[in-house]
Structure formats: C-alpha cells, structure tokens
C-alpha cells in the first residue's frame, strides 16, 4: 500500500500500547512518514508532559497548536482543557474556569466515569470534523488505560440517558466505530510480556469497543548485520589475518560478544514476532532498534524510512 493511501485510510489514528514500548516515538515516526507523503498531520498528546517536542527540537506543547516542522503540528489536549473548551463552545463560558480550578471537575468526572475520556475524544472528533489536518494522530494514555479510554463512550451511553454529555458520547462512539474515520494502531516490543499484553488489548478493543485495528507496530527490532558473521573470537582472528589487519585478542572478544548479543536478541525477537503473528491476525510493521537512548530528528528519519517500507508491504 502506498503511504499516501495508508495515511488517508482513516483521518484519526489512535496510537496505543503499554508504557515503555515507545508510543510517542511511533506517533512521531508516523507523523513524519505521512508528512513526507504530502499529508498535513496534527499530533494530539493527551497527557500534559511529553517527550514529543524534544524529538523535533521544539518547545513544550501547549493547548494551541504549534508547528513541529513542515506539515507536522502538535498540541496537547488534557481533560481539564477539553472541559473548558466544551463549556466555552456550549455557551457556558462563565463557569468554565471555576469548574476547572475549584477541583469540582474531579467530583463531576468521578460522578460520571469516562467523562474525561469523552471530553478528550469529543474534542478529537470536532478537530477531525474541522478538517484542519489530513491526519490526526492521538498519542493515547499509557497502559491498560487505552482500553478504558476507548470503552468509556459506550459505557457512558449506558449510564447517562439524556443531556449534552450523552450526545457527546454518541458522537464519540460514531467516530471510533467507523473504520473510515478512526483506527487504532497498537504498539509493542518483541518481548514476551509486551506481546501477551498487546494481544489481550487488541481483543478487548475490538470486541468491546468495536474499534477497527490498524497494523501492529513492533518497535525496537534489531536489524541483521549486512553480511553473515560468526560470533566467535577465533573466527574473527582468522578473518583479521586473512586481510592483514591486526586485531588484539581482547578486541576480538569484544567484537564476538557484541555480535553474539545481537544474534541472541534477534533470535528472541524473532520468536516473539512469530508468536504475535500466530496469536493476533493483524498485519505487522517492524521498526528498527535505534542505538540511541534519545530519539531525535535524525532517528525519526530512520524510523520513518522503515515505517514507509512497512506500509508499502501491507
């Protein structure tokens, strides 16, 4: 599939997965991938603080959209901000500040579980309808919260029988259950526990929330070396002699250990990718492991290259 086609499969992509799997990285890489194909992208961070701007070397996010780079904008969208926004646009501006600052929002949101999620997704819906971007990417809340996040609208429909919040919930359900408008992209690592959890999440989301699942992104996959090598110090020393290069015994050991480590990780990841394929019948996109603990713009390019290749293979 062409990247341009993929990025117009649905206008909203919700990127979800457990903490530590690299959701924000995948969000950023997908944005760069779509922007390269000429799409305008808006990234929505649902939690106040985020590592996203640092990846683009941009200042901290605010409620107003900022440009991260050409065709990529970003903003945050917290429940408090979404509530104020909701009240202002529904003619209740006067009390909006009071509700958020007095802590009464916590009381109301507790009385109506899922209301915060509805407010956030409701705002996502109005952004989607405004067509201000070709693709809206939502960096979903961490952990099991993703399932609650997506289920809350349906739950609220059952609980609240009348009123504007019910309407809001209905709008959200309409958005997330329409595969042409919204899909969920799950992110995982090729490790045992993350694979088990992503499978559980996938079934929970599809069965209970009725949301379309896009491809699963497997983050942090080690690439093979360009040529077959032996992770054996003796073999390395033989090769060194064959091309007249001096390699000390210690260095040969380091080279061998690093190669053996890579080989071992690759084997383990391969098993888990295979396991995921058997447990979850969704297309997979593998993103490479980045040899840097900090994702910066350079790494995003590498990841976007892989993302593009992954999409083309779909």
């Amino acid at each position, binding site marked *: 599939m062409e990247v341009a086609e993929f990025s117009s499969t649905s206008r909203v992509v919700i990127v979800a997965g*457990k*903490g*530590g*799997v690299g959701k924000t990285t995948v969000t950023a890489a997908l944005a760069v991938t779509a922007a390269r194909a000429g799409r305008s992208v808006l990234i929505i961070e649902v*939690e106040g*603080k985020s*590592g996203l701007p*640092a990846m683009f070397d941009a200042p901290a996010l605010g409620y107003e959209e900022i440009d991260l780079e050409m065709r990529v904008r970003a903003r945050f969208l917290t429940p408090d901000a979404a509530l104020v926004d909701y*009240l202002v646009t529904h003619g209740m501006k*006067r*009390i909006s500040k*009071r*509700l958020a600052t*007095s802590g*009464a929002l*916590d*009381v*109301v949101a*507790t*009385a*109506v*579980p899922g209301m915060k999620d509805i407010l956030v997704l409701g705002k996502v819906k109005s952004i989607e309808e405004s067509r201000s971007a070709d693709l809206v990417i939502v960096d979903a*809340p*961490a*952990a*099991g919260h993703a399932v609650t996040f997506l289920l809350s609208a349906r739950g609220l429909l059952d609980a*609240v029988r*009348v009123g*504007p*919040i019910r309407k809001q919930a209905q709008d959200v359900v309409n958005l997330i259950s329409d595969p042409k408008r919204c899909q969920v992209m799950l992110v995982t690592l090729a490790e*045992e*526990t993350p694979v*088990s*959890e992503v499978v559980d999440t996938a079934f929970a989301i599809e069965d209970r929330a009725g949301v379309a699942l896009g491809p699963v992104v497997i983050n942090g996959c080690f690439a093979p*070396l*360009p*040529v077959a*090598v032996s992770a054996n110090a003796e073999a*390395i020393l*033989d*090769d*060194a002699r*064959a*091309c007249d*290069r001096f390699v000390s015994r210690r*260095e040969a*050991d*380091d*080279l061998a*250990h*690093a*190669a053996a*480590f*890579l080989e071992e*990780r690759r084997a*383990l990841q391969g098993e888990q990718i295979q396991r995921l394929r058997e447990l979850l019948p969704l297309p997979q996109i593998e993103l490479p492991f980045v*040899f*840097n*603990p*900090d994702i910066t713009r350079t790494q995003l390019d590498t990841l976007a290259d892989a993302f593009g290749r992954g999409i083309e293979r779909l």
Partner: protein
Amino acid sequence: MTIRIEELVDDRRVVICCGTGGVGKTTTAAVLALESARRGRNACVVTIDPARRLADALGIEHLTNDPTEIDQKLWADIGGEGDAVVPGGRLSAMMLDTKSTFDLLVARNAASPEQAKRILDNTFYRNVSGALGGTQEYMAMEKLHQLHDEGDFDLIVVDTPPTRHALDFLDAPKRLTRLLDNRVFRLLMMPTRAYLRVASVAVQTFLRTVARVVGSEVIEDVVAFFRAFEGMEEGFRTRAQVVGDLLADPDTAFVLVCSPRRDAMQEATFFAQRLAEAGQSVQALIVNRVHPSFGDEAPAGLRAAAEALRQSPGEPAARLAALYDNLADFREIAGLERGHIEALRDRIGGGTALAYVPYLAHDVHDFTTLHEVGELLFDTVTAR
C-alpha cells in the same frame, strides 16, 4: 557514604518502588522482597498489576486483601552452589484490591453500620472506589499502613500503579482528599435544597450548569454521597496524615526504578526533586534494561576501523567491517546510557545507591529469574 541496596532489604521496614509505567517496577519490587526473604527476613510484596506469569509465580492469580505466604520450597532452593538462604526467612505476596481496601476503610471510619452501608451502596462512591484516578495509589498506601501496623512483617515492599509519570504517585493521594474536601460540594451536604439558599449565586449557577450537562440524577448521587459521608472526613484526614508520617519515617525507603532513556531520566529527576522538597530522598536508583558495555574502546575508533575495512576487498574484510560497526553501535548506546545515569545520580546527589540491571535474554517471571536479577542488583552497586 553510599547506601547499599543490601541495606534496604536488610534494615528497612518499608520500601516503595516508584517510576513511570513500563520500567519494571513490579518485577523490581518482587525481586527486593525475594532477596530480603532469602536473607532471613519476613518480607511481603504488595503488587498492583503484575504480568500474568509473574502473578502465577507468586501464587497471586486473584485480587486479595490479605497477603498469601509463598511456600519456602519454591523460592529457597533456586540459587547455585554456595548460594544458600539465611534460615528463618518468609515471603508473602498480594495483589492489591483497591475497592475492598477502600470499603474496609469506610467501614472502619463510619459511625454506624448504617452509615457505612449508605456509603457503600452509593453510585458515586462506587465510582470513587473503582475509577477515580489516584484511588489506587491512596489505597496502596492505606494497605501498606495496615500491614505495617497489624502484620508481623520485617519488610513490606510496595509496587506503585503504572502511570505515565512517576510524580503521579506523589500527587495522587491529594486528589482524593481534595475531592472529599471540595468546597463547592461540601455545600451540598446541607439539608435538602438548603444549599440553594445559602450558596452564592455563582455556586447556584454552577450547580445548575453541571446538572444540565451531566443530568440531575448524577448530582443527586453526589449529594447523597457527601451527605452520607458527613462526619467521616476528619477520620480520613487523620488517617491520611498517619499514612503520610509512615512515608516520612527513616525506616521507609524510596526506590526509584527507571530505564536509561532521556525522558525516563528527566522524570526521575523531577521525582527526586519533589521528594527532596518533602524532606525525603531517593535512597536507591535502579536502572533496568541497560545495554552491556563490551569493552572500553571509543565508538569513533571502531567506526574508522569499519570504514577502512569496507575499502578492502574480500569477504573477511566485509565481515570484520560489519562486526566493527556492530560493536561501535553498542559502545555508542552504552556510553550514552551511562552518561545519562551518571548525570542523574549527580543531580539526585550523593548517598543514593545505584544499580544497573542489564538487558536480559529472557522474561523475568519466576523465582529463578527474579533471583538472577537480585544478584545483578547487589552486584552492580557502585561506591561513590
């Protein structure tokens, strides 16, 4: 004088594992409790949301309100030769049941069984105990306090809920007390409709608007809850204070669990600062998923070697080039990770124990692998 991680499991009474989601908090908590038991103490780990296989290994498939002791045979005879346990150790585990912990707290604080029942049956209460962000953290601390007071454990290790930010743990209990103390809604506790007379115009408008948005039955539930809760806030506040004192006790240690990525490190810094503001400190920093070092050569030299070899003909040279590039990749990430870790320790200040747990070739979900991590933890403590 650097604290050693051994000291935490040997001498402290409470260890709290904090950190952002996905950094291995639950596993680390289980490791610390296991090692403490193996060193002869009566240890208990309170977990929040363990991965299924870890829960199975600990024998805690279900939510419970009381710790279950784990058969010593399962965790004592797992080390190699010369790795015997100190006799007398015991190990228990539990998976926190937030709702029943809260129910118990209500029952204990209620003036009468009728008051307790009114609260427990209230819809709003059920939402508070089941869904309110922060309740889980609050109840984890409540449970800790109960176990500390009533149990005969030498050490209780507490895992904290998976959040995006480590700081959420410190802020969470406040959210619940703030809810119970809410000024606007306390007005609602006044006799029926009286609130509309005494409340200011602003509050009236406010309540009417809220009712308009979420429906009036919701407001009625809230009113009923606050009315039923009347008289108990003081008990809750006092209790929160007592739990707070336990966290400030010198026998309580905070262990910060993180990964070597920049964002996790920043988060850890914020967390340490907040603890310091509260007059406490992070006593140990455990960094999981650190890449191995593979020697001490600088990446630049290795890259140059790879480049030179790529210019040479032949398969041996091509293989060597690939090997040098690979080693350079790993040397690079190892250097960056260690740089982050050292910088974090400098920011947190002296005295903090520091341990790395390298990337492991397998999942950690049974006592043998937990103990393996334990040995790595005690092994890598570096003096300062």
